[in-house]
């Protein structure tokens, strides 16, 4: 496969702009999550591409790679048609030489319909699991204008005795689907630190000639686990391992550093530069002399094992979102400490979406009843409402939950109506009026300042929210939020 050599890059977020401009000579490629360019259309179900954001990306005049985070290809449900079409369109607009997507799953279909787990979950690593993943990879590949690479995922669960080893599973999927591999070294190293397969064994099992791209990142320890949190510089130990692995990759075309925007303030400009320089030294170690054509291998698959991929996916997703779930597999999975870590990550993410969007209501609940009470309400909400990919939908669902359950919090109905109106006006540009039975001025001022409202006069009040030009704000609300 004749793919271009791109070099060292960054996983792009708008917050990276200043770092990028300050280190432009050290950044050869930008990796873009296509979902960050998707917007929900007003009054419609479909998605559109944010042309302004796309134009802003093009102004960097750098090659771009499409790295999808919402259509994982490790499960039994193939990626949805609409989203695959959007991914295809964005990858064309970015002129991405290949597209990458995770070898995981995040969607389940049951009698309640099609719902999201809110997290990229590990696939079933058996013969049937390989077949399911290969079918998904093929289903997405045929929709794309360029080749697909599968990203090696993080897995916080304990290895199971009947599982194919992590590396072997990836090798079988990549070979049978005839696709590339995005080797996320931090993911695999995280798995090793959390008692899964050692990175060295993993590398020995995967078809190295299929590795087109590497991801590197930092993480942190939490409750006995190492988390793939993209929270800082690449740990020196991992960088050392990478220096030994890179020369073994004959078709390596890009090395991408990942850092989540919430951690940007923790890394100084000079540390960022040092990191990029280290990645360039790593890139220089690649061995282009032994480049070879990718060949399909014929592997005899081992006998299949229970549970089936369908049962695995449904059980793990149900447990992740606290849906009622009863089976021997569910009982077994509940004992896995990794499940608590997955749940915690999903809940932290969902909680942050609610607090970010229903800002004043969340503050009011915390100030009047304490943070633990908000957590209790959220925990109840999560039991009955699966995660939503758009923050607006997550916030709307939680607002409905609050209206239905009517927790005792003074002024909550008015403040909630205000928060919801702010979101709605920002999203659809239609004016809205919010009636208040008490003076909103001291009430909202206190909440804005993070103080508990003190003296609030009773009366007839109304806040009229008028739309004005807030493209960036609208964009922030209508963008898809994906944890990965």
């Amino acid at each position, binding site marked *: 496969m004749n793919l271009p050599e791109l070099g060292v890059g960054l996983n792009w977020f708008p917050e990276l702009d200043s770092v990028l401009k300050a280190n432009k000579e050290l950044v050869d490629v930008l990796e873009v999550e296509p979902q960050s360019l998707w917007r929900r259309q007003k009054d419609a179900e479909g998605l559109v591409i944010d042309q302004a954001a796309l134009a802003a990306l093009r102004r960097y005049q750098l090659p771009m790679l499409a790295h999808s985070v919402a259509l994982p290809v490790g499960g039994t449900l193939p990626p949805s048609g609409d989203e695959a079409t959007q991914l295809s369109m964005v990858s064309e607009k970015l002129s991405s030489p290949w597209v990458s997507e995770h070898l995981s799953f995040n969607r389940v279909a049951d009698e309640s319909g099609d719902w999201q787990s809110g997290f990229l979950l590990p696939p079933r690593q058996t013969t049937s699991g390989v077949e399911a993943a290969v079918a998904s990879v093929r289903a997405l590949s045929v929709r794309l204008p360029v080749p697909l690479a599968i990203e090696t995922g993080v897995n916080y669960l304990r290895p199971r005795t009947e599982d194919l080893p992590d590396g072997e599973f990836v090798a079988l999927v990549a070979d049978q689907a005839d696709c590339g591999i995005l080797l996320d070294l931090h993911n695999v190293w995280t798995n090793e630190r959390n008692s899964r397969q050692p990175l060295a064994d993993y590398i020995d099992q995967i078809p190295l000639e299929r590795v087109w791209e590497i991801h590197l990142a930092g993480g942190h320890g939490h409750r006995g686990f190492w988390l793939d949190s993209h929270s800082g510089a690449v740990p020196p130990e991992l960088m050392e391992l990478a220096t030994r692995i890179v020369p073994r990759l004959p078709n390596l075309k890009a090395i991408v550093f990942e850092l989540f925007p919430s951690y940007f303030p923790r890394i100084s400009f000079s540390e960022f530069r040092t990191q990029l320089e280290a990645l360039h030294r790593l890139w220089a170690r690649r061995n282009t002399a032994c480049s070879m054509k990718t060949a399909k291998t014929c592997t005899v698959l081992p006998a299949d094992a229970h549970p089936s991929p369908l049962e695995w996916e449904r059980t793990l997703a149900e447990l992740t979102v606290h849906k009622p779930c009863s089976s021997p597999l569910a009982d077994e999975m509940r004992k896995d400490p990794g499940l608590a870590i997955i749940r915690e990550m999903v809940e932290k993410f969902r909680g942050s979406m609610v607090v970010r969007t229903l*800002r004043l209501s969340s503050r009011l609940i915390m100030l*009047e*009843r*304490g943070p633990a009470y908000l957590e209790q309400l959220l925990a109840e909400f999560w039991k009955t409402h699966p995660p939503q990919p758009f923050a607006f939908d997550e916030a709307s669902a939680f607002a409905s939950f609050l209206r239905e359950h009517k927790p005792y919090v*003074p*002024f909550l109905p008015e403040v909630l109506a205000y928060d919801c109106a*702010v979101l709605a*006006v*920002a999203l659809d540009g239609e004016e809205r009026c919010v009636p208040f039975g*008490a*003076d*909103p*001025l*001291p*009430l*909202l*001022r206190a909440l*804005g*300042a993070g103080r*508990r*409202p*003190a*003296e*609030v*006069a*009773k*009366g*007839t*009040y*109304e*806040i*009229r*929210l*008028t*739309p*004005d*030009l*807030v493209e960036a*704000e609208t964009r922030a609300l209508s963008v898809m939020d994906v944890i990965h």
Partner: protein
Amino acid sequence: MPTAKERPRKAAATSIRLTLPISVARDLEKFQQALANVAVIVGAVHLAGGDKSLRSRTREFVIDAASLKVKEAVAEQ
């Protein structure tokens, strides 16, 4: 956790409408400044003893998105 006794008191009635541009509502810093500006105007009228004819009807305050200044407009009854 506050007790019931400490909960906010409710006082006398009035009728006020506040027009707030969404760009101000979404920006916490601008939002605080705009509300402080409204409070100054409302407070000034109250300190001056108020105008009984004004008190009998709805008062409307309009916040300018760019300057965050507040103008009082006469609203419909």
